[in-house]
């Protein structure tokens, strides 16, 4: 029996670079370079869901529209709010929440769901993250149609300075400040990417994470000022900023939602939300990049 043949190997074997920053960054860079692929796949995912249905992706818009309408009507009555200002508030909050929800919940599943592709085709793993986030962006854009409709209906009550009930804060009304929603949403997308990357890698290794995340995310929804406002908190504390106001301030979701929601509704903006989100972006990406560096090569073993 012949042993392994000895062929002239080039140079001494270099140390494996599987766990290096350069490979981690290269992964992201190459994934970004394959825009055509993930953009196509992300759009395909949406078309796929509604193939053979008559109005297709418009169902996304209709679903969001009816949910926002029902929630807006119900909670405006429960909290004794004016529908004209409260319905747009709930609608926008819910649309943004849906984007965050998608990124977090589907983010935990991002590599597990793509097991077949990961095991068969050599590709940077960030591609699957970008595909998922892009899909969420497209869903968000569909839902934005509901926002436009709601805005058209209640424009007269939002276009001038107004108050939300239970709140002393005067909102300046719709204006040029709306443009801030664009960088705010971009920041949200950037955050969605690190969430999916980090949660995706950890969940691939520990399969308890996805079910844990999907059960606790509902709790987060009710703890976040979406169907209620921080004004309600101020009211129950009689304006004496007690510990109860911390419920909102300590919840990162509140800040993420607020930076996009405030400009879209012509609300008074507070820079501290931007500061919090900015800090979370940096910390989050640092964690995600560390996970990518250390476990990028392990994902194909774990799925």
């Amino acid at each position: 029996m012949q042993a392994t043949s000895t062929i002239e190997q080039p140079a001494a074997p270099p140390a494996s670079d599987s766990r290096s920053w350069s490979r981690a960054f290269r992964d992201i860079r190459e994934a970004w370079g394959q825009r055509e692929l993930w953009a196509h796949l992300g759009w395909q995912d949406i078309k796929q869901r509604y193939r053979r249905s008559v109005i297709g992706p418009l169902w996304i818009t209709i679903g969001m529209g009816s949910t926002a309408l029902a929630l807006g009507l119900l909670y405006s009555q429960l909290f004794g709010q004016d529908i004209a200002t409260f319905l747009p508030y709930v609608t926008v909050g819910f649309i943004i929440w849906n984007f965050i929800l998608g990124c977090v919940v589907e983010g935990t599943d991002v590599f597990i769901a793509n097991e077949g592709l990961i095991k068969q085709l050599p590709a940077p793993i960030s591609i699957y993250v970008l595909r998922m986030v892009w899909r969420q962006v497209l869903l968000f854009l569909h839902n934005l149609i509901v926002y436009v409709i709601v805005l058209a209906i209640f424009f007269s009550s939002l276009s001038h300075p107004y108050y939300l009930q239970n709140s002393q804060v005067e909102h300046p009304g719709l204006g040029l400040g709306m443009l801030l929603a664009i960088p705010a949403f971009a920041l949200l997308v950037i955050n969605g990417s690190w969430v999916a990357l980090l949660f995706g890698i950890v969940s691939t290794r520990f399969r308890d994470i996805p079910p844990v995340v999907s059960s606790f995310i509902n709790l987060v929804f009710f703890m976040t000022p979406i169907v209620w406002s921080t004004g309600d908190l101020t009211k129950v504390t009689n304006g004496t900023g007690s510990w109860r106001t911390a419920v909102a301030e300590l919840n990162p979701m509140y800040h993420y939602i607020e930076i996009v929601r405030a400009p879209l509704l012509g609300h008074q903006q507070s820079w501290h939300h931007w500061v919090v989100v900015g800090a979370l972006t940096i910390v989050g990406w640092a964690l995600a990049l560390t996970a990518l560096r250390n476990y990028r090569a392990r994902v194909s073993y774990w799925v």
Partner: protein
Amino acid sequence: MVSIDVWNASVDFPIFEAKSRSLKKLVLGKVGGKIATETKIPIIEALHDISISLKEGDRVGLVGHNGAGKSTLLRLLSGIYEPTRGSSRIVGKVAPVFDLGVGMDPEISGFENIIIRGLFLGMSRKQMEQRVDDIAEFTELGDYLSMPLRTYSTGMRVRLALGVVTSIDPEILLLDEGIGAVDAAFLNKARDRLVDLVKRSGLLVFASHSDEFLMELCNSAIWMDEGKVKMHGSLREVLTAYKGKDPYENLSPEMLERLGEAPAFAGNGGGDNG
């Protein structure tokens, strides 16, 4: 310059069973200390200490029994698995054809699938659109290309996958067995295209149980056994050692001439790296 180098590489699969795959064990396991041995994850050593150096122009056949590590080795060579020990370096654009079903979406049309598969293999949408007519002609699928893929038979899917991969110019082509599901007439046609493709591609690694295919496409071979390279040499040497007899013996003279082999096996003939 296209090349694949693997140095003392091992591929170990951790086997997480339901219990050890949860955080609970990892977190709680540390508390007791005693249980720590239980939390240790069993490992399957799929490949052990592999050193291979392939360069431009190599056409390597992979032989070995089921479970010998052929498919895992192909995934190592494609870069899907990075070695858990040792290291590897792959230079060139890899086009793997492992599972013909992957990257194929049953609900969308054959045409759309061609585009997506091409995108996965590193082509642009435009480049694929230029090739669609050629692929349609080659696969003989005609109007079926506008039908959803779930209406296709296995053979038709193989045709589609082969059509796509043979229409592009990969630098490193990695083929796993499983292209046998098509009928003989198409296989002959595909063979010509495959041979042509192999000539165009810089490097080929092909796992197959078909001597005929191996002899047609490859000039050297690696025999995998229990996750190790048992033998690496000329195709004829390796096949003879693997099968226990010279597979070239029973070939017709015309066939031998086409393959450029001598009718009798001299013992160490043809080997360039024996």
